[in-house]
C-alpha cells in the first residue's frame, strides 16, 4: 500500500474545463517524488487537493486521493483536520507570510503540539526546542521567543519545516520551498530536508519548477503539463534520457552554468501553456511540439506505463539518444 496514492484525479470549477485531469501519482514511505512543470500547470492545486484545502470554487470532480489506504475526499471536516498536521504536513514557498507575524515562533510550534498531542505548555516547549535543534537553528533556546521578523528567510523556512514536522507526519508536501531563498541558503534547506526525510522515513512530495533541485533531492520525477502527467520515472532515467518532447524541452531550457562567451543562448519551448478552457483536443502539447503529427490532433495520447515504472504520454516518444 502506497503512503499517498492519487488515482485519476480531476479538479475543476463546476461545469467549466477542469484544471487538473487524469492525474495519477503515488508516493511511497521514505521516497521523494519531484513534481515538475511550468507555472500554472496544476502542481500547487494538486498539493492543495491532497490537503483538502482547494479554493472554494474548485472541487475534486473525479478520482481518488488515498493516504495510507484511506480515502481523503470523503472524510468529514473533523477527521480531515485531524489528519492534517498529524499525518501530513506542508511547507510553502514564501517563508515570510507562512508564519504569523504577531506570535513568537515558539508559540507557533507549540500550537501544533498542543492541538494534536494535547501536550502541556512545558512538554510542548521542550519538544519545540528539540524541533528547532533538529532543523539546525543555532541557539534554539534563545530563538524560541523571537518573532518571525527577527529572523532571516532561511531561518524562517527552517521554522516552517519544524512546524510541519512537529507531529512526525508520514507525508510532507513541499511546494517550492526554496524558490524564495537565495542559492546558498537553498542548498542548505535542501540538504536539511533530505536528511530529515531519511531520518524520519518521510514520504516527500517536492513541487518545483527547477530541474536542478529535483535532480538533487528526488528519487522519482513526475512531469506535469497543462494539468496532467506527461512523463514519469526514476530521476536519472528521465533526466538523462527524456522520452516526452516536453521534458526534453524543459531540460534543454536549463542554463548551462557559465557566462563564458560562446555559451549557447538559452533554448526555449515556443508558445505558452494553454489556459484550461483553451486546451486543444488531442495532445495538449502538440501546438508547441517539434514532433507534432496529424495523429496528435486527432487522438489524445494515453499515459503509457512500462514495467520499469517509466511512463510517458506521447504517440511518438523520443528514443534513447534522440533529441527533440
Amino acid at each position: 500500500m502506497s503512503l499517498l496514492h492519487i488515482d485519476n484525479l480531476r479538479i475543476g470549477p463546476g461545469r467549466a474545463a477542469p484544471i487538473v485531469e487524469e492525474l495519477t501519482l503515488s508516493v511511497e514511505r521514505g521516497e521523494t517524488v519531484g513534481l515538475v512543470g511550468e507555472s500554472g500547470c496544476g502542481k500547487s492545486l494538486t498539493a492543495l487537493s491532497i490537503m483538502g484545502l482547494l479554493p472554494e470554487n474548485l472541487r475534486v470532480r473525479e478520482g481518488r486521493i488515498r493516504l495510507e489506504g484511506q480515502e481523503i475526499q470523503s472524510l468529514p471536516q473533523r477527521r480531515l483536520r485531524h489528519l492534517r498536521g498529524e499525518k501530513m504536513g506542508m511547507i510553502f514557498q514564501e517563508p515570510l507570510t507562512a508564519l504569523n507575524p504577531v506570535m513568537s515562533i515558539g508559540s507557533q510550534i507549540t500550537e501544533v503540539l498542543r492541538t494534536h498531542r494535547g501536550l502541556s505548555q512545558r512538554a510542548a516547549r521542550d519538544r519545540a526546542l528539540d524541533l528547532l535543534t533538529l532543523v539546525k537553528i543555532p541557539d534554539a533556546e534563545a530563538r524560541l521567543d523571537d518573532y518571525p521578523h527577527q529572523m532571516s528567510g532561511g531561518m524562517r523556512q527552517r521554522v516552517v519545516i519544524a512546524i510541519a514536522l512537529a507531529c512526525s507526519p508520514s507525508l510532507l508536501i513541499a511546494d517550492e520551498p526554496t524558490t524564495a531563498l537565495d542559492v546558498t541558503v537553498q542548498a542548505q534547506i535542501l540538504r536539511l530536508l533530505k536528511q530529515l526525510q531519511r531520518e524520519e522515513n518521510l514520504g516527500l512530495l517536492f513541487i518545483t519548477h527547477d530541474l536542478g533541485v529535483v535532480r538533487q533531492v528526488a528519487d522519482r520525477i513526475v512531469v506535469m503539463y497543462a494539468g496532467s502527467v506527461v512523463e514519469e520515472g526514476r530521476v536519472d532515467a528521465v533526466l538523462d534520457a527524456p522520452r516526452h518532447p516536453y521534458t526534453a524541452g524543459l531540460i534543454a531550457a536549463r542554463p548551462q552554468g557559465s557566462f563564458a562567451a560562446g555559451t549557447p543562448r538559452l533554448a526555449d519551448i515556443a508558445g505558452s501553456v494553454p489556459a484550461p478552457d483553451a486546451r486543444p483536443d488531442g495532445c495538449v502539447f502538440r501546438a508547441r511540439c517539434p514532433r507534432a503529427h496529424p495523429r496528435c490532433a486527432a487522438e489524445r495520447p494515453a499515459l503509457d506505463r512500462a514495467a520499469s515504472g517509466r511512463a510517458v504520454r506521447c504517440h511518438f516518444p523520443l528514443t534513447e539518444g534522440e533529441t527533440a
Partner: protein
Amino acid sequence: MRGALSLLGRLARHPSGLVGLVLIVIIVAMSALAGFLYPDGPWTMAGPPRLWPGADPRFPLGTDTFGRDLIPALFYGARVSLLVGVSAAAAALVIGTVVGAVAGYWGGWVDDALMRLTDAFQTVPNFLLSIAIVGIIGASLPVITFAIAIVAWPMIARLVRADVLRLRTYDFVQSCKIIGMSDLRIVFQQILPNCLAPIIVTASVLVANSIIVEASLAFLGLGDPNVMSWGTILNIGRQELRNGWYLTAVPAVALVLTVMSLNLIGDALNDVLNPRLKERK
C-alpha cells in the same frame, strides 16, 4: 501584561500621548475619589443657588440653580461619563469585532447577510437612533449604554472585516489549516491579534464619542435621572444660559478635556502601533 505595560511606556514617550495620559489619569482619579472626597454625593444643596465661580471660596466653581456645589457634580459626573463611555465602547467593540471577523473570514452568504445588516444600521442617523431607543425604552444607564453601542458597532465591524479579508489570504492562515487548527481558533486566536492595532486606536476614539453621545442625551433631558453626569449639569445650565453661562461652561470644559485626551491618546497609539513609523525612528 508585559505587552500592555511596554505599550504604556511607549505612549508616555510620545508627546501627545503623554498629555492625553496625564489628562485621562486626572479624570480617572476624579471619578475614583468622588465618593471619598464628597461622601454626601452630588445632589446635596450645600449653599446659595446660582453662585458664580470665585464668588465664594467655599464653592470655587460656584453652585447650580438649586445651590448644589459644582465640584462634586463634576467628580461624580466623571464617573458616569467614563462608565458609559468605556462600557458602550467595549460593547460596540465586541459586537463589531465578532461580526467583522465572522463576515470577513467566512465570506459568502454569511458575509452578505452581516454586511447588509451593518449597512442597515449605518443608513439610520446615529444620534436619532440613540434618542429613539432611549425615548422608547426609558432613560437608565444600561439602556443609554446599549443605545450608544448599538449605533457604534458597524464602524468597527467594517474595519475588522477589511483587515480580516486581507489577512486570511496570508499563507500563515493556510498553515494553520494545515496543522489542523479549527476555523474558530484561526479567526480569533491567529488572525485577530494581527488587526489589534487599528482596533485599539479606534477604541480610544469610540470611548470619546460615547462620552459625547451620553452627554448629548443628558443635555436633551434623556439622561438617567438618578445619576449626576456632565450632561445633567449641561441640561440644568441650558435653562440658565443667558445669566449663568458658567453652568454650561464648566461641564463643557470637562467634556472637551476628556474627549481631547482620548483623541490625543488615539493619535499617539496610531503612531506607536504603526510598525513602519517605529522603524523610521
